[in-house]
């Protein structure tokens, strides 16, 4: 949502600088609304039935004591909302979701940007590196979880045995057991899978910067650092916005790696809203409370979108 809105703003912003808006010149024939409807009809039909309707049902469920398939659900008012507010795990999961999101933006977004900066200058080996670094993104998150859980194994894993092997034995950690580390460790696995797409987007953005700007900076005697600050990063502003929004959405929806690697543990230390929703629904059969958390998550997403867009608008000024 965030990314979409951000992009939409840039799009209309660009259009606004070239007045009058071009689509207004299109003869507004009578059939247009109808045509538009028919063109959107397949999407609306599928999306309405399989996404919007279930969301509406979820909203209704949040006011009931539904316990899953075939069980009678009666209206309980805001009882589930009260339960959610009083459940300390909900707050912990919410907080950890925020941390998770930040980790993801920084780790996956950061690695993506760093590699893009390095790779975009390459001529002959660019395609090779671009393709090779993208490979992790092809792996399903569930499989990523299985692979990384093995890598993190405290006694046999690639990471701890590797560290011991190169003489860094005291760097070994209980990657998935240390309460202070577990969320970070799982996020590294998830970001390993996620950074490739962001990297490609950044590369694309870098290639889009007018080379004349670099030449001009060179004439002004700018060094590499100054060029990065004054030409490259400003030139990447739009793609940066897009990547950050995308990363935030992906972060918010983080589920599979946690689900496979820790299932929220140990003792809720890697619990995300999504994993808690899942366990509430399938293990505890508390679909009412799960539905409340679903709505909470949506509200959270919308809030982030608004805050992010305000911040971006202020930065642009």
């Amino acid at each position, binding site marked *: 949502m965030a*990314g979409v809105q951000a992009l939409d703003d840039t799009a209309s912003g660009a259009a606004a600088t070239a007045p009058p808006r071009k689509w207004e*010149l299109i003869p507004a024939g009578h059939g247009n609304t109808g*045509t538009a409807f028919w063109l959107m009809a397949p999407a609306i039909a599928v999306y309405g039935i*399989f996404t919007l309707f279930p969301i509406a049902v979820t909203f209704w469920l949040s006011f009931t004591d539904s316990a*899953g398939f075939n069980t009678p659900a009666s209206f309980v008012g805001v009882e589930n909302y009260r339960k959610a507010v009083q459940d300390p795990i909900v707050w912990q999961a919410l907080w950890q979701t925020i941390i998770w999101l930040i980790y993801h933006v920084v780790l996956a977004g950061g690695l993506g940007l760093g590699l893009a900066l390095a790779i975009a200058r390459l001529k002959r080996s660019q395609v090779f590196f671009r393709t*090779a670094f993208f490979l992790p993104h092809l792996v399903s998150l569930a499989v990523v979880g*299985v692979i990384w859980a093995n890598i993190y194994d405290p006694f046999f*894993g690639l990471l701890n045995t590797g560290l011991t092997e190169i003489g860094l034995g005291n760097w070994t950690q209980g990657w998935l057991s240390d309460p202070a580390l577990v969320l970070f460790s799982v996020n590294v696995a998830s970001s390993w899978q996620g950074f490739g797409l962001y990297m490609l*987007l950044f590369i*694309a953005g870098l290639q889009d910067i007018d080379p004349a700007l670099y030449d001009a900076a060179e004439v002004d005697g700018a060094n590499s650092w100054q060029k990065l600050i004054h030409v490259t990063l400003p030139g990447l502003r739009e793609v940066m916005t897009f990547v950050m929004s995308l990363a935030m959405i992906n972060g918010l929806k983080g589920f599979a790696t946690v689900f496979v690697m820790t299932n929220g543990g140990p003792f809720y230390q890697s619990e995300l809203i999504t994993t808690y929703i899942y366990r509430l629904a399938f293990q505890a059969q508390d679909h009412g409370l799960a539905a409340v958390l679903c709505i909470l998550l949506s509200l959270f997403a919308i809030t982030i979108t608004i805050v992010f867009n305000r911040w971006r608008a202020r930065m642009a000024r």
Partner: protein
Amino acid sequence: MSMRNREWPVALALVPVLVLVLAPFAWLLVSSLKSEAEIGRADPFEWPAELMWQNYLDAWQIGGFGELVGNSFFNVAGVVILMLVTCAPAGYALSKIRFPGREWMFYALIFGMTIPIQAIVIPLYQVLSGLGLVNSLAGIVLAQVSNGIPFGIFLMRSFFTNVPDELVEAARIDGASHFQILTKIFLPISTPAVMALVIISALSTWNDFFLPLIVLISPDVQTIPLGLVRFAGTYASEYRLVFSGTVISFLPIILLYILTQRRFTEGLTQGAIKG
């Protein structure tokens, strides 16, 4: 200037990073060639005494991968085609046709992007069940397409916004309908965006585990990720088959990516960024 002669130092500096990033793959490949007992010894630096290519054969045969791969291809093809059929026209309408409530329609259509599928899976299951779509590839295709529509529409709309309106105007004057403009003019020049949409939806469909787990019940309609689960029990798993099966499941998607990667990057650029 200095850009050109920086090629090799930068490339060399990237090699260790690449090794680190790809190390998990190396681990997976080596593990997939170990015997179950060797995996049990769990020494990540131990080379298999004998390369167990047999694992791949076993995973293929015991896991019934032939059927699974067929189903997965059908699943991906269905999703990709339906994504194009739904998202391209909608993206066109939302970018090139003026009608009241356009912005609202757009936001409503992309709202779903923030909803994790786990949150709506029970109602979704009931919808599928009501329509007789549980345990069918058609059902899983529709659910996945619906899940992908927000991003798909967003991508296509951004790309189409970039296409000069003069093209539409000229065609309208020539008497072309919007549908004709979309199919005869827009789609042919949108290969990059279409490629990006194809790859992204193919990738997420190929790897989807959660929806198939709930929707595909009989073995004869299941897809690859569910096949991998067959090797795992409550208390014991056959890891040599899990690992080799995982490698098998990568190959087609890696091939697809390598074959299309140039256009894919282009599509992402023009679709997502220049919007």
